[in-house]
Structures are given as C-alpha cells and as structure tokens.
C-alpha cells in the first residue's frame, strides 16, 4: 500500500452556509456564503488560491456542467478549476482533489467547495431522474429510500433481528440527530422529536418512514487547504491535518455476484480499513473521538457503524440503543445533526462533515461543542445505492508535528 498523505495537508480555513430551504438563494449565492466564511477563516485573499475543485451531484438541477460556475461565482483569477461528481460523495471528492494537489506539491493553497441547490425541483425528495440510456431499460425506477430500505430486509434476515427491534434502533438514530440538530444554528431541521413520532410517521419505502429519511436541502460548504508549513507561516497555531482520505468504488460485484448479502456496504468496509491503515489507527472504536457518517437514512447509519468497525457485526442495534453514539455518549455520531437534520445538499455534505470536525477540534462548535476536545474525527460519505456505490472516508485530527 502507498504510504499515504497523513499529515501532509492542513486545513487553513473552512466555511459552511446555512442549510435548508433557501428560496432566496441561487447555487452561486450559496457558494459565496460558504466561501466568504472560509476565506476569512483562512486569512488569505482569493489571489492566493492556486487551484480549486467544485463538487456537485445533480448539477442539471442548478449550475449545469463544468467548473465555470465556481470560477464565475468566486471570481477566481483564471486558475485551474475542476468540477467533480461522484454521487453523494461529490463533496469529499472535491476535498480529495484539493488535498491531493497540495500533497503533491502542485498547489500551495487549494480550495474545495461543494454545493447543491435542490429546492428548485417542485416537489419533495430528490429529483426523479434517469439512470442512463441502458440502465433505464432494466433498472427499477428506484428511489434513494427504496434502495437503502433494502438494507433493513437483508440485515434482519442475516442477524435474525426482529422488525420491531431494528425499527426502534433506527428511530433512536433519528431522535438523536434531531436533538443534535436543535443545537446547530446552521441546521435545516432544528426540531426535537420523540420515538413515537418516528414510529408512527407515514411510510416512504418499507420500512423507512418519513423520519428515517434525511432532509433534502440547499447548501454549500468550503475548505481551503495548504501544507502545515505554509499554515504556520500564515500564523496558524492549532492545526488540523488530514490523516487519511480513502475512496472505494463498487465494481459490480455486489450488484452481479452472489458474494454480497445485501446487509452491509462492501465499499465502506474496504475504504475504512484503508483509511485506518493510512491514519495509523488500530482500534477505531477506542481511538476515533467523533464520527460523521452518511446518514441519508437511519438504516444507513446503523449498518455503517458496523462497516466502520466501530460496532461489532450485528451489534449496532445494541450500541445505538445504549446511547454509545449520542452527543454525550462515548463516540458521538452526527453531533451536528447529520444529513438527517443539518440537511443534505448533496455536493456540500462531505465538506459539511469535515467542517464540523474542524469546528469541534478547534473548540468552536458553540452549544454543541463536545466537552473533551476530539482528537481524531472521521467522516464517511456514500453515494449511489447499497448494491452499487462510492464510499469516501476522511480522517482528520490535530497536528502533533
């Protein structure tokens, strides 16, 4: 395995727009909102940025193709700008582009920005869209909840979990995220809910009810990265560096080969192992202090706890119900509200997760600040469907160098 990029790149500044139904904002306005905060946090000027990456997932709904919308919105001075798209992992992909540019020495300072303007669709949920000329002929007209809901059926079959126990643990996931979101001024959904509300909500895709599904939001998040040396030279003292960045992409084996049982994410398990190796983490359950996962649906968060080797296989239900992942638990998950309540503007989500890690590690998370400052934070971003997806994992932490 390559030796990786651990501690080669530091976060110089970050920004995040308020997420939600931003009826008065174009995607470009959201980009500027996140960018202005990041730029001010970094303490630099636009002309110091050497290269930029834009992450969007459903660009046909807002900015259209290419990196031009980012360059125009931020008035970037004719620098290299690239748009990346990898389903819901697009934000982390933009981050990976910027981080790799710095790590390679190709850029001193690079920018990653993710944005999505979803609330021009005309109806709730993600936009109904085709899957490609050939896929359209054979794929079901599957929705995101419909594909992720299937994890529950396969998980129950594999672990012998009763529908009631599983549903109750899933409900706990959502109740916890609503609690956390209520303490986050930038979150889309800030209302607290109880277990009963989740259990009695209208069914979206069996067994996912309304409160098992994350918010569909407008929003943008931004990171400016550089080397630790340059960060120090710019006057930064408390540095947060990238410990690992990994991406695993399905190659069709889950969708076409019977070696996958449908109850977990094959990609997450692979990406997690590689990320821990790159970051030098041996006991993730003990060493990771904060985690933000791709909780597009409550069941996704539940199985992801196992796929990240934080809960033992088949043990996520117990850990969740025990409060292990609550804000005051041993390893808080979605302390900012997660996709569930912070919201899920697709291209922005991966960067939003890193933003929360960054704030928490610098003690800047306000009302939701974890008492003991987290040292190692992991973010997990998934795109696609359980049977065919991309999974990106980043680990960031305090720089000890």
């Amino acid at each position, binding site marked *: 395995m390559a030796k990786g990029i651990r501690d080669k790149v530091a976060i110089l500044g970050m920004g995040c727009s308020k997420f939600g139904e931003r009826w008065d904002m174009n995607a470009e306005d959201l980009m500027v909102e996140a960018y202005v905060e990041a730029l001010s946090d970094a303490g630099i000027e636009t002309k110091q940025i050497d290269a930029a990456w834009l992450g969007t997932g459903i660009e046909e709904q807002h900015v259209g193709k290419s990196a031009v919308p980012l360059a125009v919105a931020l008035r970037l001075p004719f620098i290299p700008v690239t748009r990346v798209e990898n389903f819901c992992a697009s934000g982390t992909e933009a981050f990976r582009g910027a981080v790799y540019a710095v790590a390679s020495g190709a850029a001193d300072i690079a920018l990653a920005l993710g944005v999505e303007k979803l609330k021009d669709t*005309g*109806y709730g*949920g993600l936009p109904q*869209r085709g899957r490609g000329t050939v896929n359209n*002929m054979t794929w079901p007209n599957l929705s995101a*909840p419909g594909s992720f809901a*299937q994890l529950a059926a*396969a998980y129950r079959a594999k672990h012998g979990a009763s529908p009631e126990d599983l549903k109750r643990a899933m409900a706990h996931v959502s109740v916890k995220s609503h609690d956390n979101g209520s303490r986050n001024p930038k979150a889309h959904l800030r209302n607290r809910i109880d277990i009963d509300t989740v259990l009695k909500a209208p*069914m979206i895709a*069996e067994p996912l009810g309304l409160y098992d599904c994350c918010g569909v939001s407008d929003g943008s998040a931004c990171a400016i990265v550089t080397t630790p040396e340059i960060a120090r030279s710019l006057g930064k003292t408390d540095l947060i560096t990238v410990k690992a960045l990994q991406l695993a992409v399905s190659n069709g084996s889950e969708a076409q080969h019977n070696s996958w049982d449908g109850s977990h994410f094959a990609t997450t398990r692979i990406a997690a192992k590689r990320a821990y190796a790159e970051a030098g983490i041996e006991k993730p359950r003990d060493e990771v202090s904060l985690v933000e996962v791709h909780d597009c649906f409550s069941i996704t968060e539940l199985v992801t706890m196992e796929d990240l080797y934080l809960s033992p296989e088949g043990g996520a239900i117990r850990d969740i119900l025990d409060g292990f992942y609550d804000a005051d638990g041993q390893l808080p998950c979605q302390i900012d509200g997660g996709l569930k309540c912070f919201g899920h503007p697709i291209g922005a989500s991966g960067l939003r997760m890193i933003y929360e890690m960054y704030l928490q590690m610098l003690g800047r998370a306000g009302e939701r600040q974890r008492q003991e400052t987290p040292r190692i934070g992991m973010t997990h971003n998934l795109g696609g469907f359980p049977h065919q997806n991309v999974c990106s994992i980043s680990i960031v932490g305090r720089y000890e160098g």
Partner: protein
Amino acid sequence: MTFGILSYGAYVPRLRLQRKVIADANSWFNAALKGLGKGERAMANWDEDPVTMAVEAARDALVGHDRDGVTAVTLASTTFPFLDRLNAGVVTGALNLDESTASNDISGTQRAGTTALLQALNSRGQTLVAAAEKRDSNAASPLEMQTGDGAAALLIGEGEPVAKLLASATRSADFVDHFRTIDSGTDYGWEERWIRDAGYMTIVPPAIKAALDKAGLTPADINHFVMPAVLPKLANAMAKKAGIPDAAVRDNLSAVCGDTGAAHALVMLVHALEQAKAGERILVVGFGQGVDVMLFEVTPANEKKTGRLGVSGHLARRREETNYNKFLAFNDVVEIERGMRAEADKLTALSAMWRNRGAVTSFTGGKCEKCGTLQYPISRICVNPNCGAVDTQKPEPFADKTGRINSYTADRLTYSPDPPACYGMIQFEEGGRWMMDFTDVDEKDLEVGRNMRMMFRVKDIDNQRGFRRYFWKAAPVAAGGN
C-alpha cells in the same frame, strides 16, 4: 410421427375484477348492468398487454419442449400494442428463439385466433400459435363486464400430438356485428338479437356440418363443443340447432374470466384439452366476419403430466380486485393526477434497445467459460472477484431460472402506476443476480428467500411518444407452477 397439437398453454392475469363493483359504480346510469354484476373478469396488471400475455402463454405451452424445434411464431390479437412493429417479433425475442424463426401477426377479426391456428395446422414446420387480447371498453358498457384479458398458445407440428385435426371448415362473410377503428378506440356494436339470429345462428351451422361431413362424424360424436360468445345461452342454442349434445357445451368461462376476444376460442380449447380424455372429440368455433370450425380428436399423449399451469392453473393463481377505479386508471379510461415524478422522460434509445436485445428482451446473461460464474448481463470482463477473465462469457438464458429475494422494499416515493413500487435484489442460486422490479405481488408477501419467477412485462410507458418498453420482472412462483 404425426402432425397435430403437440402442446398447449394459457395465461390469465392474476387480478380478477369483481363485476359487482362495476355494476355498483355504473348502474345509476344503466340499470341493466346490474344483471351482469356477477362473477369476475380477468384484469391485466398495468404492465401487461397482449404481447406479455402471449409470452406467458407460450412459455406455458413450451414447458418440457425443446424450443429449437420451433420454426414459426404466429400471434393473433385485435389489440396489438403496435400497429407497425411486429408484435410476434417481440414474443419471438422474449422466448429467445433462433433468429431463423418466422414471425407474423394475425389481426382484424375476433376469429384471428382460430384463423392463426388453422393456418398453422395447414402448414409445415413447427408453429407456435399464440392469441392474446386486452380490449379497451367504455366505462358503463356491457363489454366492460363481459370481456376479460387473457391468452392461449398451442404448439403445432410433427411429433407425438396430444390432439389431431380431423377436419376443418371456414366461411367468409362481411357480417359487421361490431367494429373498432383507430378513431373509435372501443367497439361499436349492433343489436344483440340480430347478431344472434342473422349472424351466429345463420353463419355457423353450415360450417359445423361441413366439418363433420368431411370427418365422417355426426353431431352426437362431439364431446366438447367450444363455442365462444358473450351472448348468454347462445352456445346451447347453437348446439341444439347443430344436433350436438347439450352436455358437450363447454363452459365459456364467463363467471371466472370473461371473454378474451380473439384469444377466447383458443383459451376455451386449451381448457377443454386440460380435461379431455383420449379418443374424445373437440369441436372449436371461431366467429367473426365469417367462421372457422376445427374438429380435433384427443390422443393418449394428452394424459402425460406436464408442468404447465394452463387455464385451470392460471385461474387458480388469482387475486380478487374490488377497486374499479384502479381498473379505470390502468386502462386510461380516467385520467388520474400522477404527479410531477411521473413526468420523467421515458425515451427509449432504439439503437441501444437493439444492441442490448439479448439482455433486455431475452433476459440473457453470460457464463464465464474460465471460472463457470453465471452473471447478468453478459460483459467483457468476468464479475467474479477471483477471476476477471476477458471475453470468456457465453450467452446464458436467465428467463426460466427461479430467483429468490435477497432484499426488497415497497417504495411509496418513486413513481409507479401501481404504488407502492415493489422491487429488490433477485439472486439466482446457480449464480447471477439483478436489482429488478417485482410484479403481481402484494407487499405483505415480500420476504427474503422467497422464490420468484421471471415474467416478461411492460417496463415503462413513454406517453410522450406512444412507445412502451419491455423487460423482465420477478413475481412469486405460482403454486403447482412450472
């Protein structure tokens, strides 16, 4: 080797609309409908049409038969989904028959089914004759209650026939009891009493006599009289006039299925064959702008057990439907608000459809000759993580494999003409899997491990262009099924 009917099968859609709900909804307007409000009619699912029903009937008829022997496919219907695209060609493709197979459509009359059968019996080679019908009808029309959707198929050729043709007769007569044009959409019919007296009772008897004379038999020699007609007691009156014993009159399946139009003579013939004993004689009448009469004798080969469901098996594969509005919506009789999600463009790239016809129409996958892994669809590089061989796959048919549910959901968010959309991962034990639509399933019956049969169905309807594309879906295996 003898020429005759080598095999037979049928298909009746699973949904059975209760006529009482139709009568209850419409008798405020036409009180006479109350009298028809008994029993049930077969109702195609939203994703069924004459092509898909013909495919199922043909598969039923082909159980236990080598498909390589089929040299021609004839499809009869007056309700073809395509006016200019060979409907029988779709069936041939779905059955994965050799490209040397002749395919043709027969249409234009309610006796299209018997005409197709007669042509096959008068030809050489092995012909798969299928007839299927799904008639549009106006709300509150008698036809809405009298008709049903369904299909039948018979394999004709040299071999060990289950029934032999003894004689036949045909007559042409431009007797317009009803008509249907592109403009009218639904049937426009004349008075029933005139149709009965000047039509059936005048045109049919001479043809019956001619067939019996040719065979050197008398009316009393008939054991099964297949005389389809929606007019009540017409078959009995016809038997009486022709001298055929009343006991020989076959049930026209009105109570349990309804009249399947151009397919109905063949549906009733298949039903008769399912019950007939060796040596018995079946007289089949097809009426419509003239008449076809065929006289068959059943052979001992008919008593061999096969895995077919036939008419009886499909009638038993039944789910009562009491929602008349659903029937109206499925058949576009009423326009329901489908929501913005239904607006997604369903354009089919015809070039891509042709290029992928093996995977899409025939449901053919691949088998890696290096590691033996079965996979769908066929691809250049083997999906087995421990293989990865390039260009080693040979075509492998999946359509007749039984799959089982690996994961599933019932999705109320995505657009479906019949929500919730049920779909999931189907896994084939020998290898291969695909995330696919389910059909003919109730949400409560979904469970991991359940055995599912592949069925050829309408995948999407492109309302913008009037096109429809087909693909395979997974349905629960029917009890006693093949």
